[in-house]
């Protein structure tokens, strides 16, 4: 078995264990709720018989371990229960709202990598000089405010004062696009509507940048720190002694080893973005999982809350497995290793 495949299987196994742990944690949180879930679901006007019937139906009379067993069995069948808020299966609700959130987070992730890594490389190359200081202050500033503050500031500057970008939403009302995937960037292209595609991108930019800002700062800082460390290695000195161009040294010899620790942090930042998407979506009226999440939380809609958290944790675990594989791919010591990792 190739080392990368072995790593993949091992990571998937660990992820499965963690996912079961997450389901226990969510189940525990849902059961510490003060009051009777059946009573909350039915509202104050329900008769005691109705409450008793629903309690039996929700398995609330059985011991906690059995209740958890039922929950796990349902989840493994892909059944997250019915939302009390929309009266639809939670899986349907999530399938409707998740693509908008994923699209936002993915674009934000691309922006984070596309800006954060080059800034870090720049800072390392000009270590101790003014580009380095500027980038350090920028990084510290961007991580110093929650993304909803950046969202509000960006909206004020680039949607109201300089009306470059739209104020809210995913796409202008004039475009009627068939939703096949739920990802508007893909759906508009499938429809062959370039104008709508451009419109969707314009809607994406401000929320995605607001979401990415703190990640850009962190990625830049970390890349700088790793590059600086790599620059002190003997093989860099050797490359310099050979008279290679500084840009070639930076690109080939210093950047690649530095990228590996940065990737781990980028995986973690992705997790933070899944959470922060809740804040940015609220500011830009982005029709993603956040609006649904906050709505079901305010209504104490247990099935929907548990389903939403479970899906977000699953997304995060998948991203981390991908990040681990990327690292294994970039790192020849793992890629070519013959011993078990």
């Amino acid at each position, binding site marked *: 078995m190739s080392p990368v495949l072995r790593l993949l299987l091992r990571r998937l196994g660990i992820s499965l264990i963690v996912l079961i*742990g997450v389901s226990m944690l969510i189940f525990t949180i849902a059961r510490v709720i003060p009051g009777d879930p059946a009573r909350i679901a039915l509202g104050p006007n329900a008769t005691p018989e109705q409450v008793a019937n629903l309690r039996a139906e929700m398995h609330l009379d059985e011991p906690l371990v059995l209740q958890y067993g039922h929950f796990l069995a349902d989840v493994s069948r892909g059944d997250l229960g019915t939302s009390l808020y929309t009266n639809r299966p939670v899986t349907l609700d999530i399938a409707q709202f998740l693509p908008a959130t994923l699209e936002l987070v993915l674009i934000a992730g691309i922006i984070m990598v596309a800006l954060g890594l080059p800034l870090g490389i720049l800072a390392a190359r000009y270590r101790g000089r003014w580009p380095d200081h500027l980038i350090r202050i920028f990084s*510290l500033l961007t991580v110093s405010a*929650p993304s909803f503050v950046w969202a509000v500031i960006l909206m004020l500057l680039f949607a109201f004062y300089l009306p470059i970008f739209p104020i809210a939403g995913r796409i202008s009302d004039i475009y009627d696009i068939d939703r096949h995937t739920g990802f508007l960037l893909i759906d508009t292209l499938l429809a062959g509507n370039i104008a709508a595609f451009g419109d969707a991108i314009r809607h994406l930019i401000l929320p995605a940048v607001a979401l990415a800002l703190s990640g850009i700062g962190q990625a830049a800082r970390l890349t700088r720190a790793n590059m600086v460390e790599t620059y002190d290695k003997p093989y860099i000195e050797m490359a310099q002694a050979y008279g290679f161009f500084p840009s070639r040294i930076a690109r080939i010899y210093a950047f690649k080893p530095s990228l590996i620790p940065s990737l781990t942090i980028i995986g973690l930042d992705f997790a933070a973005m899944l*959470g922060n998407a809740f*804040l940015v979506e609220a500011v830009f009226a982005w029709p993603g999982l956040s609006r649904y999440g*906050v709505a079901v939380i305010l209504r104490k809609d247990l099935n929907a809350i548990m389903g939403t958290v479970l899906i977000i944790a699953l997304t995060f675990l998948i991203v981390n497995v991908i990040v681990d594989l990327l690292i294994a791919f970039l790192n020849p010591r793992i890629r070519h290793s013959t011993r078990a990792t």
Partner: protein
Amino acid sequence: MIRAIRILAANPLSLVGVILVALVVFAAIFAPWIAPFPTHNGAVVDFAFANKPPSARNWMGTDLVGRDLFSRILYAYQISLVLGVVVLAIAAPVGTIFGLLAGYLGGWAEAILMRIVDVFLSIPPLVLAIAMMGVLEPTLTNAMLAVTVMWWPWYARLVYAIARSEREEGYVLAAEVIGAGTAHIAFREILPNCLPAIITKMTLDMGFVIIIASSLSFLGLGVQPPTPDLGSMVAEGARYLPDSWWLTVFPGLAILIAVFGFNLMGDGLREVLGVDE
């Protein structure tokens, strides 16, 4: 101590951080005396001055019911700082104990404790706090509880990583040879070597706890009105953009200043205490 002052003086950014933090702490403690309108931290209305832009009377303008925004921001700092201190005072020791035990004992303790930590870390921090606030009543105490529950695993992981490498050091072996107990080695021998990293992280985390707590109240899941909170102030004001810009800009900047201060200070501490990133 002298070395610390010298490093701070040589590093103007850290000095700025210390000054910002000092200002924020001062503002919070003495809010009742500094605030031009000390009664405006509660449910006061003064419609004659409602929704006014910044002026000589109200430096940061007034909110929709005429309360002085500057006074409310000072009081909001009280809430933020108390929340940060309480959360870290619980999360850091709990996480440290978990991390020390897992790192020093190894074996089954390590496997079980660190898998529990993994579970917590695999839910985005804010989402876990949001989910907890979903089932709890939105009060200050519950917000502290929710943030603490999501915070301790980070300390467990940090301390675990240090303890695991320290376990192999000579001084630990020496302590084991002379028959020291597990608790003694974990808390008296290994813990002191974890302290610089823990203290640095706590300083940086003060800022991040303020961010998470304000995020909760921004979503309406934290401290409830009329208690002033920076997050809910931004949320309230965001509906009146761009005309009443001061309603969101000043509370937003207030968060930025406080967190920026703690970040700069933590960054400086990292150098003083010689902690790796």
